[in-house]
């Protein structure tokens, strides 16, 4: 079954009463609970980084450089003696900020374009679909490598690139889901009673499709986090003095022959984040999407 079909099915069946049931389903899924715990821990650590971090992430302490992980330095220290654990906590802030801002911006713009395509005249629909397909034609990482340096590396360039390349994902899905909800009889009834297009969109279409689309958005968060780390690793993402998991990987990779655990440590937060968000996203979809529900 394609993602589109499942979304359409979900769009038809997620109602307000389904929310509680879905949440119960989520808590009954061990992998979902596992993902939820990882994500909650991560968010907690990132939000309270300044209270939790045992050291100043930027404090250089050359004599204690390249220390292996220990109780003093949970993830060891880097080539300047900075505490990797503290740096990872602040890197988590950047990762979550990039993920949330890009996802919501892309979701908002994509939803708008999707509605426009679904409601607008035929030529506008074709134009928007062509536009979305054109953006989709660029391989994200390679495009970012080309365009990123022109706009200057930094958080906002990363967010800009990720938003631009994620818009088609939401735009196409919202368009399809809207078109399918539009075919429902209750929409025909509303139209017959003379409801305006705004009323139909806001009162009927949006509540019907927003749940499944938020779930898809949650599944895209690990992809965005990976992309941010990747771009920072390549030197077109986050720049020092800010910290990023990708920057830490890049640093560690440079010393891979000398002290391999440095790059191993740098990879751990990224693994936890991507695993957590992926398991949670999958479980959310299973819990709320009846077509994907597990057989009894």
């Amino acid at each position: 079954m394609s993602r589109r079909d499942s979304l359409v099915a979900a769009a038809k069946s997620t109602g307000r009463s389904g929310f509680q049931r879905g949440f119960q389903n989520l808590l009954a899924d061990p992998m979902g609970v596992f993902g939820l715990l990882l994500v909650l821990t991560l968010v907690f650590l990132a939000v309270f980084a300044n209270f939790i971090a045992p050291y100043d992430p930027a404090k250089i302490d050359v004599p204690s450089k390249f220390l292996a992980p220990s109780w003093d330095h949970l993830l060891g220290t880097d080539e300047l003696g900075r505490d990797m654990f503290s740096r990872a906590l602040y890197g988590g802030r950047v990762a979550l900020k990039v993920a949330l801002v890009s996802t919501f911006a892309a979701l908002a713009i994509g939803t708008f374009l999707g509605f426009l395509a679904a409601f607008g005249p035929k030529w506008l629909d074709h134009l928007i679909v062509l536009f979305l397909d054109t953006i989709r034609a660029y391989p994200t990482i390679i495009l970012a490598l080309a365009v990123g340096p022109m706009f200057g590396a930094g958080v906002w360039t990363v967010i800009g690139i990720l938003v631009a390349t994620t818009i088609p994902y939401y735009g196409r899905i919202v368009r399809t889901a809207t078109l399918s909800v539009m075919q429902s009889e209750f929409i025909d009834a509303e139209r017959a009673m003379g409801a305006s297009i705004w009323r139909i969109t806001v009162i009927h279409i949006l509540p019907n499709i927003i749940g499944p689309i938020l779930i898809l958005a949650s599944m895209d968060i690990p992809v965005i986090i990976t992309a941010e780390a990747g771009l920072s690793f390549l030197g077109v993402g986050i720049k020092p003095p800010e910290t990023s998991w990708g920057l830490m990987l890049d640093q560690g990779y440079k010393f891979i022959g000398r002290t391999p655990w440095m790059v191993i440590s740098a990879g751990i937060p990224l693994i936890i984040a991507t695993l957590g968000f992926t398991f949670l996203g999958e479980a959310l979809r299973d819990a709320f999407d009846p077509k994907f529900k597990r057989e009894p």
Partner: protein
Amino acid sequence: MLRFCLHRIVLGFVIVILAISTLYVLVQAAPGDPIALMVGPRATPEMISALKERLGLDQPMPVQIFNFLTGVAQGDLGLDIKTRRPVIDEVLEQLPHTLVLILASVILAAGLGIPLGCYSALHQNSWADRLVGILSVSVIAVPSLIIAIYGMILFAVHLRWLPAIGLGERGNILDQLHHLIMPAIAVGIGWVGYLARLVRAAMLEVLNEDYITNARAFGLPERWITFRYALRIAVAPTITVLGIGVGYMLGSAVFAEIVFARPGIGKMMYDAVSVRNYPVTMGVVLASTILLVAATTVSDLINALIDPRIREAQE
């Protein structure tokens, strides 16, 4: 069918042309002026305008785009700033290495993912099915960059089973394959999981269809039903996904090529970006965009061949 093919191919061309034009405008509009970087900080305004005139950058934008597109159509991607060689030659030199890597990853993904998904669907809810499910989601989640780096530490630095860097000895196929293993796993392992899940879901759905029940009622052997009827339909979505997947794999290939110091367009791109060699970076983006659109188009066409419902839906 012919109409569908033509429509898809024309659409592919339109998208490539639009994508290239958009990129051209974007590059010209970007705040970091490539010309200023090309001539260096000590250039006079006269030198800059002379270069702009020589490159045709003083003409109106639509004319520039048209000139650029005709250039691309004739294989003219400009000159490498450093080596003074045509960019197209360099791209064509590096592209095969990346294509081999992506092909190896696709083979890995399909060769492992489809049987695993098929097995999972036939043994639904067994412990093996659950294990495949959890492992699939895990390998989808973990970034290929991490797999490349951890794989290098474990298999090349620690265990010394696999070579760490390079393409392998020229002409020695076995050595080259040996060098291909780790990069291909880094790029492809996530797709093994993805395809396994996709095939499992598709198989389960197909096996519930009426015509499968019908075939069972006719007493056709289960093996025949599974492979001849169900798998054929269940594989169709994997082809679409692999078509789109080429784009993601191109991204992963950049990381694999850098980590394993392996020649290819990703490594070439990375090296060019760090010295601001714009013609090369543009050339790589163009080549990879064309590659990606071609892959999506071909996968759509194959899909339409396999599953008549798709071409009917489009026509």
